């Protein structure tokens, strides 16, 4: 039996299904049923406009590059349905950031860079956490769990 062919076939099917799921998700995000998309898109566009020049913060911040903008766009697209919409910011490293905020001590902040890294920190009442995850086009489960904890 040609196992290589079977594995290849399974892998192709898996890729096809994965791509269909992504397409459906993109389509649903753009539909009227999920109004969050347009608001986030507007917020992202405004952040890009404000922060694409050097020194946008008056303290010599790096400009937000198009690569960072693209990564943030796909990050927002990859958020699961029903998740609360984050607000969008930028940091002096030239990264865009998203924040899920309930109060000063119940908050998750994640920065999206052009090198496919997600740097995050959260305050969850009396506890806190921080770290870095690699971004492969899907929002890491660890970050989704932190969003859930902010709103739990």
């Amino acid at each position, binding site marked *: 039996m040609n196992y290589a062919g079977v594995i290849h076939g399974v892998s192709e099917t898996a890729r096809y299904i994965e791509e269909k799921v992504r397409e459906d998700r993109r389509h649903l995000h753009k539909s009227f049923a999920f109004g969050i998309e347009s608001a986030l898109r507007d917020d992202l566009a405004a952040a890009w406009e404000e922060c694409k020049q050097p020194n946008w913060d008056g303290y010599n*911040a790096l400009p937000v590059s198009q690569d960072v903008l693209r990564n943030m766009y796909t990050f927002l697209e990859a958020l699961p349905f029903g998740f609360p919409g984050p607000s969008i910011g930028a940091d*002096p490293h030239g990264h865009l950031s998203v924040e899920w905020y309930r109060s*000063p*001590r119940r908050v998750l902040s994640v*920065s999206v860079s052009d090198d496919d890294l997600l*740097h995050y920190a959260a305050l969850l009442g009396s506890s806190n956490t*921080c770290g870095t995850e690699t971004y492969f086009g899907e929002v890491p489960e660890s970050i989704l769990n932190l969003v859930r904890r902010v709103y739990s």
Partner: protein
Amino acid sequence: MIDPCHVPEVESDETLARFILSSRHIRSSDDTISPNAFIAHPGNELSVTRHRDATEDEIWNAGRAVAEVQQRRLHGRGDVVAIAFLQRGLALQAAPVIGHARLPDNPNHANVTGWPKDDKGRQRLHALEIVAQSRLVRPSDIR
């Protein structure tokens, strides 16, 4: 303002101001400050202005002077007591600006140093902890 000839070290109970020159650094939902305003870059220093020996007008004048030089609008300032930085293991250095070619004189200027340069997650955590203890003050013309 502080006498530039006798600048004391920063003490833990002093209030320090971080001028906000980007509207992105203010959370519109509840008028609090974004952690992005307290992330040091470039280098490893975060610029602040000490309240010590300064009137309210003098503090705002320092902020307006920086905004003018940088051609930015002054949106407000984040006031935070120095201990908030020290509790995070950061250091405070008096760094008066006098006679600088491109910066306005500010004898009350100080730097927050000791940021974890290669750990951006921890930088963000420090910033979150600090903004949780900060207070946004708006200038009188946009209150």
